[in-house]
Structure formats: C-alpha cells, structure tokens
C-alpha cells in the first residue's frame, strides 16, 4: 500500500503552476498535496505565487492532473494492483505514444508523486516482461 509520507506540511490553498511551454494551471490543494515536491517547495517559500515546472510541458502536466484526480476519486484502497489497473486505463484512454509514458515517468519523478511513478515504472517493467528476447527489448525500447 502506498504510504503517505508527510515530508512537508499539507497545502491548504490552491496553487498555480507554469509549465515549460508557458501554460499556467490552477491546481486544487487536494491534487497538489499528492505532489510532494510542490509541498516541499511551498514549505520553504510559502509566498511563491507561481511554481515553475521547467521540464514538464502542458500536455504531460494535464495527464498528471488526470492521474491525481483518478487517485483522489478512487473508491478502492490504492495499492500496487489497483494503481496498475488505473494506469492501464489511463494509457488506453489518453496515451498513444511511448514518449508520453517516459515524459510522465519523469514528471512523476520530478514532482515526487509516489503513486504515479510506481504505476508508470510497473507498467514499463510489465512491457519488458512481455518481451521474449533481448532483440525484442531493444526494438521496443530503442535502447541502443
């Protein structure tokens, strides 16, 4: 089960973020609280008005928000199995490009959203698991 590690105090107000391509988003506190990096940032500088996300574009951030809303609205306990199922559904509905999955992983890593980087890395390792040979892995994941 994913544990809530309160490395910084919870946020009680909505926050504004700006993505790498200049788009601003007003994020509700219950979604922002899933992003530990933002909580830590606000713990250090409470008066910051717009939080820059230099390495995350708007398309990626919208998917991050979609994930956070799904977690917030989920009626089941979030664990490895349920997160895997939820992420598969997200991929089917909204992602048609492996590049986007990589961007999502990096965004989850940067924003420190435990549930999302757990689900995305699990998803990728499931895909690696499907490969029958090293050649398959290389072809699908374009390693070399």
């Amino acid at each position, binding site marked *: 089960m994913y544990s809530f590690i309160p490395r910084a105090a919870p946020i009680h107000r909505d926050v504004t973020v700006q993505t790498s391509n200049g788009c601003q988003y007003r994020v509700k506190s219950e979604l922002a609280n899933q992003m530990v990096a933002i909580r830590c940032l606000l713990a250090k500088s409470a008066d910051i008005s717009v939080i820059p996300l230099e390495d995350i574009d708007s398309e990626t951030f919208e998917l991050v928000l979609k994930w956070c809303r799904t977690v917030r609205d989920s009626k089941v306990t979030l664990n490895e199995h349920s997160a895997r199922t939820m992420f598969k559904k997200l991929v089917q509905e909204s992602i048609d*490009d*492996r590049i986007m999955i990589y961007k999502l992983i990096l965004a989850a*890593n940067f924003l420190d959203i435990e549930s999302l980087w*757990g689900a995305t*890395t699990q998803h990728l*390792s499931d895909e690696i*698991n499907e490969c029958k040979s090293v050649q398959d892995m290389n072809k699908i994941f*374009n390693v070399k």
Partner: protein
Amino acid sequence: MTTETASLMQLNDDVLALIVRYLNVYQQFQLAQLHIRLSSIVQMLWRTRIRNVVLEDEMFRRSATSSKEFLAFILALGPFMQGLSCHGMDVRRLRHLSSHTLGGITSFEWMAETQRRGRVRFVDEDVRLLRRVFPSLRKLKLRGCQITGKYLCDLELLKELSLDDCQFLESQYFPDIFRQLQLRKFDIMEDCDEVNCCDLVDLQLCPTLEHIKIADYHLCMESDITQQLLQLPRLHKLSIYSRNFVFDVLSRIARPNNLPPGGELRGIIGGRQQQIEGFRFSGLLHDYGRFFRELSNLRQLQRLELHGLLEEGQDQLQCLEDQALLHLSTKLPALTELHLCGYQLESPAGILEFIIHCRQLKIVNFTRSKCLGDALVWRSLGILTKQKWRHEPIRLWIGESDINPEIIHSSRYLDNERLLRIETKRLSHHEDYMNGVLKFCFVR
C-alpha cells in the same frame, strides 16, 4: 503505439533502477546486455540485494534461452549469490555448468517437477557435478531426484541435507553419508518409501546431528532405532511425521524403556525423555485421553503446543475433555507455555488446572479455540488473584477464539493487568507446522 524517437535511456538512473527491480533476475541480465548504464544499474542491484536466487523453468522457456546464454547468465550472477534454488528446471541446464566453479554458493536446492513426464531426472552423476561446481556447499535440498545416495558422502562440507520424494535411495550408502559428513540437520521426512528404518540405524554414526526429520516408518519397524536417536549427544530437535501411528511414536519417545503409561522411571538413563523441553503436534486424533497419558511422561516439558484440525466434511472442532487436561496439568510442573489452538474445550476448568498446577506458566495460547467465551478470563483472574507468589502476568492469546476481544477494554480486566495480559492479535499458522508431525525439542 509510435516509438520512433522514444528511448528507455531518456529516463534517469533512479527511475531505471526502479523498473529493473520489478523484473526477474534473468530479465535483469538480459536488459543489462543492452546498455552500459543498464549494466551498471543491474550490477549495483545485484551487489546490494542478491544473496539467494530462485530460478524457475518458465524464466528461460519463454525466451528459448540457449545453453550459451544460460551459462553467461549464471557466471554473471555467480559472484553475488550465496544460495541458489532451482524450481522445475531442466537438469540439462545445470549440466552446462559442469566445467565451472561457483565457490560463493553455500546453499543449493533442486526442486524437480515430479509430475512432468519425459523429463530428464537429476541422478547420481549430478551430485558429483554439484561437488565440482559448488565446492563450498553446506546446505543441500533435493526433491524428486533419481539418486541412490552414492555420492552424497563426497560433499565434505555439507551440514544440512534434505531429501524429499527421492524414491530410489539405497540403504547401502547411508552408513558412508552419516560416517563421513558432519551433518547438523538431516531431513528425510516425506515420501521416501524405499528407505526403511533399518537403514537409518546408521544415523548414530553422525554425532553432530542437531535436527532430524524422519517419518514414522523409520522408527516403528522391527529394529527400533529410538534409543540410538535419543542418545545422539547434540540432538536438539526431532520431528517425526506420522499419519497413522501417532500414539506408537509418542510412546517410543516418551517411554523408551517401555514402561506403562505414567510408570516411574528408575535408575540412570534412558532419561533422554527427561530432557524433552518442548513438544508440538498438529493433526487429527481420536483419543486425546491416551495422547495426554503418554505426554504426561515428559515430566520436564516446558512448552506444549497442540493444534487441532477440522475433520474433512466437519465443521466442529475436536473436543478436549476436562478430565484429560486435569490429569496432564498435574504431571507437567515445569510447563511455561501451553498452546491449545483450534479446540473445543469441555469447560474452562481444563485450562484453569494448568494455571493452578504449573507455577512457571507464562503463556496460554487459546487461538482459534472455544470454551464458553469470557468465563475463562474471569475465572483465571479469580485464581491468579490468590497466587501471591506470581511475579509476572500470564499472557493469554485469544485470537479468533470465542472470547470477545473487547474484553481488554473492560475495567475489570484493566484493574488486573498485572495478573493477566491478553493478546488479541491473530497468530498465523507458521508454515513449518506440517500436519501429522510430532516435534520434540531437547534441552541443549
């Protein structure tokens, strides 16, 4: 899904490490072949996390792993492993290692799939291979192998040997095994029908044995090897699996001089049963009166653990009568732990007699048992209040019993916590609690 410019290597090392950790050890090896960063990540993971590896046939069958690839994998993994367990593997893969040495491996398990027809089996020559490939082997478990036992005595450093479902063992090789090896643990408990008790008489040739697991037919044949077993100087645990001869086995251990039940032992030895400090049994019995009469010979018993089972098709717990428990309670003055799990007691009186007679009693485990609910707690407190000589509370474990767990919030209980401490948590059935096994623990 379009992947034209997408590459796994866009991800940072932390993320890649997390992905790698979800994969099995062979997939990690495969991935490591693709890029130096991945190789470095896998090496770091193996260095810090790999000690005991389980290999399953499925890992290699899926990717049609060649012998060359398998060998490269094992040699890469070898320096990091201490224990290797092979489940359902084709023994021909193991034979690929024949001219190599993996000195770091001290524990090896070969768990064959016995149901699989047409499979090449692990045979005597493969034991010789183990000696060459794993020269530091200290612990060996073989299941479903077609070995006679001929070369087991050559595994000079072996301390623990477990043979399961090895139906071709030959008795002529056991004297050498016990004479030449300094075994601490020997386990032949299941499915070795070809080995009769006369053969195991040579167990006495191995004075280093501390833990023995055998079946009842090893004990209860024409030549009784009970005395030889009990005289092993370092014996600490003796586990005997018995489906149909529980009373016979118990009487041989509890009364090795064939005294009648409850008879006094005079003179010097034979007193190994005097040194039995723990006894555990999990299974179905139809005469607990007789069972307890035999147990009453274990006068030095400190720990008694009994787990009842439901009969097939029945939903009623086996019943323990007060009279039988009363008799037993007067015979075990040294008892510190009483575990009666999964039984229906006639009344609380049985357990109360132990509290009265066993002055050293510290734990009463009532998990999964039933006996008129909370009355047991209140009557226990009534007795304990009068036992002024007790300095520690008795711990009462009541998980899944018919005692209401809310009792721990009652003021009457809270006022007397210095006498009785109740534990409500569910205690899981330990995986070692195999049904039908009588386990004796001896004082060291």
